[in-house]
């Protein structure tokens, strides 16, 4: 090991070592243990396929010509007229809130390429996103407050459905986009996430978007997370050297305090 090697191994990139094999571990109270550092499929576009990630199979194929004809067709999201108008009007060159390091929000954080550390005890499951060093907690067997103060990540409660942890999140501030390409959602969005540790090395993950303002029906996205025992979570400061924004190459969102779609 020379000066060029990092202090601890960060593995061999996406090829990685073979994920560990064995049954899903359990916590002392008998629940599946989701803990670990997980490599997740980067999902910049929730209507398109990528490695270990698939859009909702029940949605129709997008008939638009594909730049890469060998890639599977994208899916058409079930926009309401309002949702469609917001999607078609979106131009990130007029402002991408993440460029100024504003919080990505729940779905765009789940979509991010950097690993996710999950920590769990009987009362909470904690999601430590390497992306911009954010965290989010879900209260196991908790209740949503009656009057939720809207936030970027929303208010999350979780419960066990057999061996699947179902995370239920509402109370979004509506200032975020679902994904990097910019699919819209409203503050009325309800997100359901399902985490099933299928074996020691994998989590089967599902996200369901239910937002009647923007979409005519709920739709989902499924993924596989892979355990990376050879990685450690690293610091990620979005603000540190954000030249794109500091030098004005990226514009701030026109009105960062307003929900998407409002004036």
């Amino acid at each position: 090991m020379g000066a060029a090697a990092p202090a601890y191994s960060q593995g061999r990139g996406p090829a990685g070592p073979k994920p560990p094999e064995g049954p899903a571990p359990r916590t002392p109270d008998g629940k599946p243990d989701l803990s670990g550092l997980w490599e997740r499929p980067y999902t910049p576009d929730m209507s398109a396929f990528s490695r270990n990630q698939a859009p909702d199979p029940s949605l129709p194929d997008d008939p638009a010509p594909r730049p890469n004809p060998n890639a599977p067709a994208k899916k058409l999201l079930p926009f309401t007229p309002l949702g469609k108008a917001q999607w078609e009007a979106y131009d990130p060159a007029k402002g991408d809130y993440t460029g100024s390091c504003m919080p990505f929000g729940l779905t765009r954080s789940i979509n991010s390429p950097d690993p996710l550390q999950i920590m769990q005890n009987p009362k909470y499951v904690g999601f430590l996103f390497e992306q911009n060093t954010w965290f989010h907690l879900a209260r196991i067997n908790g209740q949503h407050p009656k009057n939720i103060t809207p936030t970027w990540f929303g208010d999350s409660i979780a419960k066990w459905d057999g061996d699947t942890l179902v995370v239920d999140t509402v109370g979004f501030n509506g200032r975020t986009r679902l994904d990097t390409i910019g699919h819209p959602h409203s503050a009325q969005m309800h997100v359901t996430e399902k985490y099933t540790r299928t074996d020691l090395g994998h989590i089967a993950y599902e996200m369901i978007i239910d937002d009647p303002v923007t979409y005519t029906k709920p739709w989902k996205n499924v993924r596989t997370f892979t355990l990376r025992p050879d990685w450690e979570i690293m610091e990620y400061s979005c603000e540190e050297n954000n030249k794109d924004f500091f030098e004005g190459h990226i514009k701030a969102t026109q009105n960062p305090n307003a929900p998407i779609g409002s004036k």
Partner: protein
Amino acid sequence: MKTKLVVSLAGLLLAAALPMLAHHSFAAEFDDTKKVTLKGSVAKVDWMNPHIWVYLDAKDETGKLVRWQCEGGPPNTLTRNGWTRDALKEGDQVTVDGFQAKDGTHTCNARSVTLPDGRKVFAGSADDNGPKARGEAAEK
């Protein structure tokens, strides 16, 4: 040092297909119709979040030296693919293929950084809904 660089090349090639830029979308800043190929001398490397930046002095069409700054991947992802900040040094001659910023400044998104012997350093920022992610050839 040279051997170490070669050893880490396998990781680099994989990195080219890796998601590298999530902190903002490609289209928020860069113009996929303004492809640039810059040949020049490395002046500095910022190995910092959220993206590394490579500064280089390249000659414009009149022969005048111009300082360019080109954005690369996040240092965390590059570290996981075996790179260190030492892979590129001041004075190294490189060719950067990328796309210029929409604001017309000498700012680019580097899709590749190539040494004179053809080895690629640091890779580009793919899968940010930029040209590569959309399945279009980078050399269009």
